[in-house]
Structure formats: C-alpha cells, structure tokens
C-alpha cells in the first residue's frame, strides 16, 4: 500500500459514518437545543449571526414556565420514581437467579438463558400488549379453577362461594396500571441484570473464595466480604442500565399507563404530537438527553471498574450441582424464569388464537380484510410489508455505516500501536498523539445514539430536516434513518471485535503472496467478519421491526409499521380489533424471537454481556 492509499481509504471510509452522525444525529439535536432556547418560528443563520435571536431568547421564560408547572414537575417526579422502583424490583428478582446461573452448570442452561433474554429484544408494543391481557387472563384462569370440581372438594362450597363474590375477584379485576408497568419493566429488564451479573459472577475465580475460606472466613463472611464487594460494580452497572431504560420508557407507559401516567418521554410525544407545543417538548427533550448522557457516562465509568475487577485469567468456575438444596435452587430459578418470561408470551399467543370460547385463526384471517370498509383503512398487510421494507433498508444502511465506523476505529487503534515507532520524529509525534486521542474518542461517539431515546431522535428530525435541501418529513427514508441510528452501534459492537481479531500477519502473508489490497479484503477480511456482519444485520432487523417511539412520531399514515398498527388497533373498540392486535403482536414476537435465537446460535464468543 502506498502512502496515499494509507490515508485516503480511511478518509473515505471515515467520512460516511461521520456525515451520517452529523446530519442525522447532531444536527437534529442542535435543532432541539435551539428550539428550547429561542422562540420557535425563525432561526436562520443570519438571525443567529446578528444576535437578533438573543433578544428573542425565551429559554428562561419557557424554562420557568415549564418547571413551575406542577403537572410537568409531577411527571418528572413520576419518571424518576417509577424508574427507581422498577430498577430495585428488577434487582431483587434477578440477583438470586443470577447467583444460580453464575454458579452452576446444568443441562438446558443455554436454552433458559435464551428464554430469559427474549423479553429484552421483544418490541415494546408486544410487551405492552401482552401485559395488557394478563389481568383478564389470570381472572379467567381463576374462575375456571374455582368452578372446577377439584377446588370444590378441596376448599368446600362455602369458601369457594365467598371467594367468588368477594373482593378477591374484584382485586383481580381491578387492573392497577402501576403494578402492570412495574411488572412489564421487570419482565423487560430482567435479563439485563441476569446476564451482566451472572457472567461476572461465574468469572469470579474460585481461588478468591477459597483463599477467603482458608483465611478463616465462613460462607457468610466470604459472601459479604469478598463476593459481594467484587460483584458491586457489575450490579451497579446493570442497575444503571435498567434505570436508563425505565427512565426513557415509552411504549410500556403509553399503553399500560393510560392518560393518568406519563413519563418525560411520553410527555414529549404528547406535547409535540397532540398539543403541538414544540418549545415545551424541546426543553423536556433537552432534559432527557442531558440526563441520559450523564447516566451513560456513569455507566461507562462503572464498566471500566468492572474491567479492573475482572480476573486477568479468564477461568469460568461453574460447577455441577451436587446436593439436593443446590438442585432445588436450580429447579426453582428455572421455574421462575419460565413463569416470568414465558407466561406473558404464551398468554399473548393464546389470546391471539382464542375466540369466543374456542381456538380459531379468525384474527389472523381478519388481518388481511378490510371488513369495516373504512377509507382511512391501511391494511395490516401493508403495515407488514412497510415494516419489512424499512427493516431491509435499515439493514443495508446500518451495515454500511456500522462497518465503516468499525474500520475507522480499528485503523485508529493501529495508529496507537505504531505510536512507539513514531516517537522519534518531532512533529509526527504530535500528530500521532492527536490521532490516539481521536481514536479513543471515536468509540464513545459512535455509541452516542444508543443513549438517546428514539422519541427524541424522531422529534429532532421532524423539526430540523423538514425543509429543502433536505426535507425528510415525507420521505420514505425518514424511518429507516432513525432505525439506522439506533441499530448501527450494534453493528459496530459486533464487527469491531472480529476486525480486531484478524492478525496483521494474516493480511501481510496474503499480500506477499500477491494479493492486492482489495483481494486481501475480499478473501481474508470479509470471510472472517461475515459472521459478525450477519449478527449486526439481524440486530438491525429486529431493532427496525420493533421500534415504536420514533415511528409513532414520524411515520406518515401511508408508511405505517407493524408496531404502529398494533397501537392503533388497540385503541379501537371491539373484540375484532383487539384480537387483530394480538395476532399482529404474535407475528412480530415470533419474527423477532426467531431472529434473536439465530443470533444466539451464531454468536462466536462466550460473551454474554450487552
């Protein structure tokens, strides 16, 4: 490779993700920022330059107005409160299971871990739908049980009757939205805690515990003085992630919470889409962005601490269960995971094929008919094909942007390695250290979109990319672009380790045998990263299929996606609409599940984190 190639290729490759981020991430965010500082109508470059806008700066008045409003304050308080409670509940539920998963090796463990992780990749709309039906399902089951002969014999007529007409049923009937929201959040985030802590737990070396016990510590002391302090960063990091997810919870709260409950995220949507109050939506978005950024920063710092505590030699100390108690523990946690993660999904499937007391596929059939004859009707089949088309475009864009970003990051880390050689050349040294700094910053920069909520992204794009030269408001590409923003960091995460795993000598040996740079790439690099690319592609696919917030914001009626259709069907009266929502959710759930199970099976590394 001559010198020109050496710099030209990274330049071209690096250009793509940068332009993409600049145009579709930073520019919309800046738009939100400006909106919240200045009055909505005109901010042009001239007015900014001539400081005219400063006079119109309404940020503080807006700010004061918003934060004096008791409604907004209570929404902010609710957002924090529900996120904290959800996080604590998730930890309480997940940590005992992660002890079992991090300590023992048993048959079918991988299957259980996959089942436990499934909820995390399910579209929010599917989760919300399945939790909506759980209370009525529990009620049905209880009634069925109470009316059966067995219960009659066991409890006696008297108790049964008192149960039937008393508050017990009322309690079940009473759908407390808060309970459902918490339940859904635990269901959703259970695997985040489970996977992060159990993989860390199993990597804690057995030596450490044995060293403590030979120094005189009993099991109890070993746990509280050694194991728990070592686990602490992993627990905090996972709790932090769960908190961020619950803090920016959108679909679950929008659907399960009804009009009386609203997180900041839901409020941004309501203010912008229902009330057209853009300044308030902007300020709330700004608040949301700053807060999640802060949390993300804290999370990355914790992540570093985890690395520090992770033993240098990766030995996984999993043991087979011997005693009856250990076997019982495994049985209980497996049962719990099946109930927690499997039950809502099974409930959804069941509801979608249960019509008037018998099993039927009527809802699925109905999806393809316009029986109400509405002219506003967008056939669900159109939604399905839209979703698939968006997913397809997203895959292509995410793969291009993601792998370019990965190549750029790797290129910069090569420069780090060459730093030593460059030390002796004065100016070069400065350039090299600048490149090092740049390389270190690259990875977090490309991860930024992950910490920004989809609703914020959608909102930012609508208010900034709405006039020529770049008017995306009516464009087919608006939604795929938002989905790419969310999906391409996953591609980077999948491809980068694979790229880094290719030793330089491999490429050098190919080129010394006469392969041109392109052929080296084609015959050496591409086959090695193909698996990682396919993982990234499936990630992009599932993200795009299930994404709800941004699509709700940005999708025009003719570009309706599956999640939006489910949402709309849920909002319409009648058992047919409801049933169709179940059917569509089931389809979405199955497609995402298949995609995820596929990823789990081709994932190369023993890596279990996120």
């Amino acid at each position, binding site marked *: 490779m001559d010198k020109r190639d050496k710099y030209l290729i990274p330049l071209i490759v690096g250009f793509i993700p940068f332009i993409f981020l600049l145009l579709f991430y930073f520019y919309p965010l800046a738009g939100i920022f400006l909106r919240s500082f200045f009055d909505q109508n005109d901010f042009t470059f001239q007015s900014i330059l001539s400081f005219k806008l400063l006079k119109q700066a309404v940020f503080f008045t807006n700010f004061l107005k918003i934060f004096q409003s008791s409604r907004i304050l209570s929404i902010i308080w609710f957002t924090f409160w529900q996120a904290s409670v959800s996080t604590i509940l998730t930890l309480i539920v997940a940590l005992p299971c992660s002890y079992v998963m991090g300590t023992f090796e048993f048959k079918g463990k991988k299957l259980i871990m996959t089942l436990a992780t499934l909820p995390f990749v399910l579209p929010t709309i599917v989760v919300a739908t399945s939790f909506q039906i759980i209370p009525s399902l529990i009620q049905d089951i209880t009634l069925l049980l109470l009316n059966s002969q067995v219960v009659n014999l066991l409890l006696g007529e008297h108790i049964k009757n008192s149960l039937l007409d008393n508050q017990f049923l009322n309690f079940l009937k009473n759908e407390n939205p808060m309970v459902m929201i918490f339940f859904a959040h635990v269901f959703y985030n259970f695997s985040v805690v489970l996977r992060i802590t159990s993989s860390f737990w199993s990597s804690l070396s057995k030596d450490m515990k*044995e060293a403590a016990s030979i120094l005189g510590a009993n099991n109890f002391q070993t746990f509280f003085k050694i194991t728990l302090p070592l686990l602490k960063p992993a627990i905090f990091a996972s709790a932090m992630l769960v908190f961020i997810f619950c803090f920016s919870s959108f679909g679950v709260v929008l659907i399960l919470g009804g009009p009386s409950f609203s997180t900041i995220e839901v409020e941004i949507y309501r203010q912008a889409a229902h009330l057209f109050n853009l300044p308030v939506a902007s300020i709330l978005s700004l608040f949301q962005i700053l807060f999640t950024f802060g949390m993300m920063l804290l999370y990355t710092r914790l992540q570093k601490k985890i690395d520090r505590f992770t033993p240098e030699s990766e030995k996984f100390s999993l043991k087979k269960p011997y005693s009856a108690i250990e076997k019982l523990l495994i049985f209980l946690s497996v049962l719990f995971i099946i109930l927690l993660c499997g039950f809502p999904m099974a409930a959804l499937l069941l509801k979608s094929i249960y019509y008037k007391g018998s099993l039927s596929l009527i809802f699925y059939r109905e999806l393809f008919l316009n029986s109400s004859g509405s002219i506003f009707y967008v056939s669900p089949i159109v939604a399905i094909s839209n979703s698939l088309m968006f997913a397809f475009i997203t895959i292509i864009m995410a793969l291009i942007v993601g792998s370019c970003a990965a190549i750029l990051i790797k290129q910069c880390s090569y420069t780090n390695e060459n730093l030593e050689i460059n030390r002796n050349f004065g100016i070069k040294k400065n350039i090299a250290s600048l490149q090092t700094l740049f390389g270190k910053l690259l990875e977090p920069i490309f991860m930024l979109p992950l910490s920004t909520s989809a609703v914020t992204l959608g909102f930012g794009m609508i208010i900034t990319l709405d006039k020529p030269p770049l008017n995306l408001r009516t464009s087919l590409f608006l939604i795929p672009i938002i989905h790419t923003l969310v999906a391409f960091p996953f591609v980077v995460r999948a491809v980068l380790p694979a790229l880094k795993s290719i030793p330089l000598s491999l490429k050098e040996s190919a080129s010394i045998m006469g392969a041109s740079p392109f052929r080296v790439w084609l015959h050496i690099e591409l086959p090695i990263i193909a698996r990682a690319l396919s993982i990234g592609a499936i990630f992009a696919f599932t993200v795009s299929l299930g994404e709800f917030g941004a699509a709700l914001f940005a999708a025009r009626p003719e570009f309706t996606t599956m999640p939006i259709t489910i949402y709309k069907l849920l909002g319409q009266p009648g058992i047919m609409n409801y049933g169709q929502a179940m059917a569509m959710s089931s389809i979405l759930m199955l497609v995402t599940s298949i995609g995820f199970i596929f990823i789990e099976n081709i994932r190369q590394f023993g890596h279990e984190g996120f």
Partner: protein
Amino acid sequence: MNSYNNELDIKNICFKQGADNILLNINISIKKGQLLSILGPSGCGKTTLLRIIAGFEKPYSGEILFREKNMSNLPTHKRNFGMMFQDFALFPHKNVFQNISFGLEMKKLPKKEIALRVQEMLELVNLEQYGKRDIRELSGGERQRVALARTLAPSPDLIMLDEPLGALDRQLRERLLSDLCFILNRTREKRTKRKIAKTEEIKSRISEKNEVNKPITTIWVTHDHNEAFAVSDIVCVMGSGKVEQIDSIENLRNSPANKVVADFLGL
C-alpha cells in the same frame, strides 16, 4: 514410626473424578516443623492433594489427620491452615494492608493488634511502605510476597504453597526462591522472639499456639526438582496419582526407587 510425632497424616486418600482415579491410596506423614515438597509432573494430582488437605475437596476415601485429629468433617475455615495459591488469589478490591489483615479480621483480633501484625508481616517481606498500594499496581514478585505475608499473618498451623514460583518468569523465580526460603526460615526461627518485643498480650497469644522456636510445618508443591531440592527437608515424588517415593534429598539422589523417579529427577 511413632504416629504421635507426626503433625500431619495423610491416610489412604483416594480421589475420583467420574470414573477416573485422580489419586490412589496416598499415604504421607509429616513431622512437626518439617518442610515437605511434593514433586511431580503437571496433572499428577499434586494440587488435588493440597485441595483435599485444605478441605476444598472431599476425598473419595481415606482420611486426613492433623495432630491426630480427623479433619474430614471440619470445614476449611476452621482448620487454621494457610495456603498460597498458584496465581496468588489476592483480593482485587482490597489494598495490600487489607489483603494481609483479612485472616486476622476473621479471627476477630482487635484493630491495634491487626495493624501491628500486618506491619510486622510487611517488614518480613520487605514491603514496609506498600500497605496502601492497590493490588493492580504490584509487580509479579511483589504480589508473591504479599500473598506470602497474607498466608503467614494469621499464624496458621500448616502452610501449603501451591507452585509458589509458578506464575513468575525464570529470572525472577531464581531470585525469589532464595528470598522465599529466607523469609520462611526467618518466620520459622524467629516467630516468637520477634513477638516478645511487641506487646505482652500478643506474646501470650502466640506462645499458646506455637511452642517456642518450633517452625511451621510446610508443604511445598512444585514440578521443578531444583526448587524442591533447594528448599525441602524431605521430598515426595508423585507420578500419575500415586506416591512413587518419599525420602530425603540425599536418598533420592543416591537411590531412586524406580525408573519414573529417576527419569523425573533427570538422573
């Protein structure tokens, strides 16, 4: 041989993993204050034997007697043994001081006494100024010495060293071997004398446990015969789950019991 003289008796120990015999009828006796090294190629069951003595593993059959008391049902943390792990197993969330003091805290000693004892241990391993250091900041050799100090601090009745030099490179091994011998000998000789100079309370505590000038019984596991010859009073040569020969260094050199021993010692 009068069994009363034996500090540790390993009797007919067998250990199985699935259908494989890892250890087969191991019988070893160690007298009080002796340093025995267990020498053998990797995979011969040395470490497993140590783990059984420590109580980490339950033997398939046989028993471990310490001072004529059967240890089989005594959990590890009540045995008052010390063990230095191959990769040192220092606690990464604790600093040097906290690592060394861990065993003393478990004995619920008063804080003052702990601080004194830790300082004494740090002096012993020549790391006086290192108390507040993070474990990650230490070099391999320093870690080894901290691990040794941590093992010695609670005054165990028996010390086990599992390939104490295994994790280090060759040059360091040679230097640290002599250091380690020196430190061990110093503890073995001067334990109580040094203590007398400190508080009266500690003195009485220590002399209760260890008679004056009696060194700690030590088991040193290694695959390097030079190392074994340099440190031990007696050497036990093991080959694939069996004891091949237990003898003094001189006898081993002059009359190896069989071809396995001779080959392994390079004779």
